[in-house]
Every structure is written in structure tokens, then in C-alpha cells.
């Protein structure tokens, strides 16, 4: 059963956004300028057709500006599409907007304005619960559960102006959870957070929202390891289009090499990287220093096709870098993303 089905969904932005403080007189001037010289149209979301099954954790990855946020906004009716159709929770996106709006909840990146500053944290949760039609006792029970689960008890009485980024983010997640809608959309839920809080949030999303709650979660992120770890299926966005959409293991099998050679070297310096890369004609090269002082590093070459460890080894040794070990590692979603996007660019 598909909770979301989109077909050829498109959103086009025309020209620059208007500046703040523009009066209608200047708006007329801008309009005249636009009639004189048509600005470029840019398709921020370009013919996207994806399906999201019920109860799955769907990941959306892509670079900034690839259309992730706009896609989520389209599905939650914050922005209207220019072409295409979609069905969300059984309601048509264009014709049954209010029904769609009632059945989804979206959490913005950063969680900035999700809470009312006039109410305390717990009161915010209760307010949202009551707005969604829960009874007083049920609302209180849910709110306490959220506070305990997200480790927010100490901030339950505080107001949103005094919270840190991590607490803001968690409160906005908690509000999504309380709403209990069939579809939950999260825009970069762990982007500005430290590892402790990020892990807590990931556990919460996986356990409470997706597994136990049974809600369908669409999550946009640009941490590929997060998408790899958490999501049932992942859609890779690039310049408004979906390059691939499947579960991480299938994507890895289809788009990345079976294994990637990883070289452990010593005596390596960052400045050598460019030279070696160019001389071998590699598209990219990832260095991971174990010990900058001694130059012990892990090198992962990245390119599509079959890598040749021997050429690599001789190029390194020519630069007086000792190759300690060559290991084969499994590709990650990072390799998939890299391969798909670089192919698109070149």
C-alpha cells in the first residue's frame, strides 16, 4: 500500500526571489523589467515520480539546492506544484489539499519556530496534542512519554528562547510524534547537532516513529551514513531529479563496485594527494588520516568502474609513500552517491 505516489511532480522557480522591503511601486518596476527580459526558469523539482510504501522510513539525500526541501514542501502543501500529480494518504494533492494537510506533519530543519515561545515545553506538547483531538489524559500521557524518551524532562518547564539547538530539534520532533499523523516529514533532523543528540534522535526516529508507531517517515538528510543506517529506502536527488530510488543494499549492489580497495599507507602528506590523483586520472580521492604527524592514513580512491590497486601502489611508492596494507572494503552509500552524481556532472 502506497502512502505517497507522485507522478512527474514539478516546481519551477522563475527569477530571483523578491527582496524584503519591496514596495508595490518597485514590484511594478520589477515586473516591467521581467517582461522586457525573461529571467531564467529553474526547475527546482523536476519530474519526480516516487512511491513511498506504508510504514517505511524513506530517506531523501542530495546536495543543498537539489530540491529535497522543496519536494517535502510540495507534499505537505506548503508549495503548490506546477505540473504533475500526487496522491498523499489517498488524497489528491491538487484537489484535496486540506485533507492532505490534515494528514501530514512536517518538521523544519533546525526546529526554530516549531514551538510557541509563550508556552513552556510541556504545554507546547499538550497544546498540539489537544489540537489533534486527544483527550486531556491521553495528551498528558503522550507528552510525558515524549519528554522521557527524548530526555527533555529538565526543559519541560522552560521556554523556547532559552533552549539550545539540540533541545529545539527534539521538541519539534516530539511535536511531530504527538501529532500521530500517518505521514511524518522531517527536514534534516540531525543537521546541526552533536553526536550524542544526533544518536538519540536517530534512535527515536527509528524506534518510536517508524517501528513502534507505524507511521511512515520521510526524512531528508545529507549525511549519507545516516541514510545508509536508518532508511528502508533511499531516493537520491540531484538538481531536482531523482537519480535512483531503492533500498541501500540494492543501490550498493547496482551502482557501486563489489568492493573497493582501501590502502593503509605511512609517510603520506596531503599535498601529494592532488598530484597522485591527477597523474592517475582519478575523479576523486578520499584521505582519512590516522595520524597526521606520522602520515599514517587510509586512502580510498573513488571512480566508477574497476579500480586497479597495482597502479595506485606504484604511483604511491614513486612518491616515497610506503603502502602498508591493501584491504577490500564494502562500498557505502557515499560511493553510490558519488558515482551517480559525478556521472551526471561529467
Amino acid at each position, binding site marked *: 500500500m502506497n502512502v505517497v505516489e507522485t507522478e512527474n511532480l514539478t516546481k519551477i522557480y522563475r527569477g530571483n526571489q523578491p*527582496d524584503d*522591503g*519591496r*514596495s508595490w*511601486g*518597485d514590484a*511594478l*518596476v520589477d515586473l516591467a523589467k521581467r517582461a522586457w527580459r525573461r529571467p531564467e526558469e529553474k526547475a527546482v523539482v523536476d519530474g519526480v515520480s516516487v512511491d513511498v510504501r506504508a510504514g517505511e522510513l524513506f530517506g531523501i539525500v542530495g546536495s543543498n539546492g537539489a530540491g529535497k526541501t522543496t519536494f517535502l514542501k510540495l507534499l505537505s502543501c506548503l508549495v503548490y506544484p506546477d505540473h504533475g500529480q500526487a496522491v498523499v494518504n489517498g488524497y489528491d494533492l491538487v484537489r484535496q489539499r486540506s485533507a492532505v494537510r490534515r494528514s501530514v506533519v512536517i518538521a523544519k530543519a533546525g526546529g526554530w519556530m516549531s514551538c510557541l515561545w509563550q508556552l513552556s515545553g510541556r504545554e507546547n506538547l499538550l497544546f498540539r496534542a489537544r489540537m489533534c483531538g486527544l483527550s486531556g489524559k491521553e495528551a498528558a500521557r503522550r507528552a510525558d512519554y515524549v519528554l522521557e524518551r527524548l530526555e527533555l524532562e529538565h526543559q519541560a518547564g522552560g521556554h523556547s528562547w532559552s533552549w539550545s539547538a539540540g533541545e529545539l530539534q527534539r521538541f519539534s520532533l516530539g511535536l511531530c510524534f504527538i501529532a500521530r499523523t500517518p505521514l511524518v516529514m522531517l527536514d534534516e533532523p540531525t543537521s546541526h547537532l552533536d553526536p550524542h543528540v544526533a544518536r538519540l534522535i536517530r534512535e527515536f526516529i527509528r524506534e518510536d516513529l517508524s517501528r513502534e508507531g507505524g507511521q511512515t517517515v520521510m526524512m531528508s538528510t545529507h549525511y549519507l551514513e545516516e541514510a545508509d543506517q536508518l532508511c528502508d529506502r533511499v531516493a537520491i536527488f540531484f538538481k531536482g531529479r531523482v537519480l535512483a530510488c531503492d533500498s541501500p543494499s540494492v543501490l550498493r549492489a547496482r551502482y557501486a563496485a563489489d568492493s573497493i580497495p582501501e590502502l593503509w599507507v605511512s609517510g603520506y602528506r596531503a599535498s601529494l594527494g592532488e598530484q597522485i590523483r591527477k597523474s592517475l586520472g582519478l575523479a576523486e580521492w578520499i584521505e582519512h588520516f590516522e595520524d597526521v604527524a606520522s602520515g599514517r592514513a587510509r586512502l580510498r580512491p573513488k571512480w566508477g568502474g574497476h579500480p586497479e590497486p597495482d597502479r595506485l601502489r606504484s604511483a604511491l611508492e614513486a612518491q616515497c609513500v610506503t603502502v602498508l596494507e591493501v584491504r577490500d572494503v564494502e562500498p557505502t552509500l557515499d560511493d553510490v552517491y558519488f558515482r551517480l552524481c559525478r556521472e551526471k556532472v561529467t
Partner: protein
Amino acid sequence: MSIDQTAIRPLTGRQQQAAVWVFIKRDLSLLTRFKVSYLTSLMGTVQQLVIYAMIARFGLSLSVAHGLTGGYVDFVLTGLALNTLLTAALTGPYLGLIESFWSNRIEILLASPLRLPGFVIGLSVGKLVDAVIQVAVILLGGWLFFDFVWPDGGNALVFLAVLIPALAAVIGLGLAAAGMVYLLDARGGQDPVQFAVQTISSLVAGVYFPIQVLPAAVQWLCYLVPQTYAIDGMRRALFGAHALAPPPLISHLPGSPLLIDVLVLLAYAAAALPLGWLVFRNGMERARADGRLSRWL
């Protein structure tokens, strides 16, 4: 890219000047970004100009200002022009500081080698630039269309002797108001001191009508604000020291009324400017200690 350790010497005077100039350029480009809005707002100034020029046509005989060849037009337009300038100097630092506070511009400005005086000038210069344009509109418009007579008996040096202390006094008050923002952690809203000074000054400084017209019970207020002396002194500097009858209190004092105006302004400036600067710097140090320099700090 190599580092240049020899570049670590404080900014020269020329570089500081260039920094202030770039603030002016920035404010100009921001002002004129929306050309239609800006023209519309200038219309407000033109509206004032027209109103008073039309009032002048009533044939008001200004016995007080017998020396002004243009009559009421001369009187009121010079008053308007200087009042615009002084108000901009009064509110400039405060508004500039509030805007920098909320946009976090303060963080970058204070972490750059710009020194505090340059920083303050940079904050306040925006409003002043706007005021200069408005003054040009008033005087030019008056001269071209409404029989404003350029003063020929005026002495530029004397005029500056009035203008500079006046600006200094008013900027001192403005700095004090801006310093209050940090001292008391106020982050917006209407500054009561500035509001009071502005309102009072527009009523009693002799901008639209000579002080003698006000009811005697209220006339004592006129002598408190520096704008009164500034506007009176400026008219005398432009049109002649005795072009107007002196305000009642001053007429009792010996010596030329112009001289008295200048002396009072100098005293005001000597008191207000250092005081304002102290308040401002004190406020900034407090904010720096408390971590309140900007919205995000």
C-alpha cells in the same frame, strides 16, 4: 597563498578613512536599492516643503524676522533643513546599533580591525546620508519653486562655527541613547529619551515658528534643547547676526545673540559629547563582559 606577518600593524588614518567612506557607499546603495520606494519617501519631504511654502503665501508678516528678505519661507525652510540634519544625528547611532544587533553585523565589525570611533561613525552615517539628501531636496526645491532666497550676507565660517558644535552636542545625546541599549539590555522599541528630545525639539526649537509665539509658560523648555540655539544661530549666520529679533531670555544678555548661541552650543557639546561617548563605551564593555553584544552572542 602566503601569510604576511608584516601586515600586522594598525590601520593607517587613510585606511580608516576608506573604511568610513565604504560605510557611506554601502548606505547609499541600500537607500537607493528600491528606487520607487525611495522616491516615494522623498515625496514626504517635498510635501512638507510645499505645505510651508504655501503657508508663506498667506502674506505672513514676520515682525520677528525682519531681516529675512524671503520672509516666512526663508525662516521655515532653513529651520526644516537643520532640524532634519540634527534629528538624523540624534537617532543615527541608536538605530544603527539596533540594526547591527539584530543582524549580527556587530560580531563581524567588532572582530575586524576597525576602531571604536570608526565603528560608531559607520553605524550612524547611514541616517546622516539620508538627511543630507533630504536637506538638498528642501533647499533646492525651495529655491527653484518657492521663492526661497539664498542668503548673500552669510559667512561660511560662522555657519560652520554654529553647525559643528550643534552636531557634536546632538551626536553626544545620540551616543548616550545608544549606550543605554547595552547598559540596560534594551533591544528595540522606542527610546524614550530620544522621543522626548525629538518631540520637544520639533515644537519648541523654533523650526516652524519663532519662539516668541509660544505661550510664556512653556517658553522655558526652548532653552533646554540644543536645537533651539542651533537653529537660531544658523539663521543668524546665514542672514546676518541681527536679522531676527533675539529670543526673550537671550535679549537680556549682553553681546551679540549669535555669539551667545555659539557659546551655549560649545558648552553643550563639551558636556554632551564626552558624556555620551563614556556611556556608549561603558555600555559596550558591559555587553562584552556579559556576552550580549549581539542577538546571537
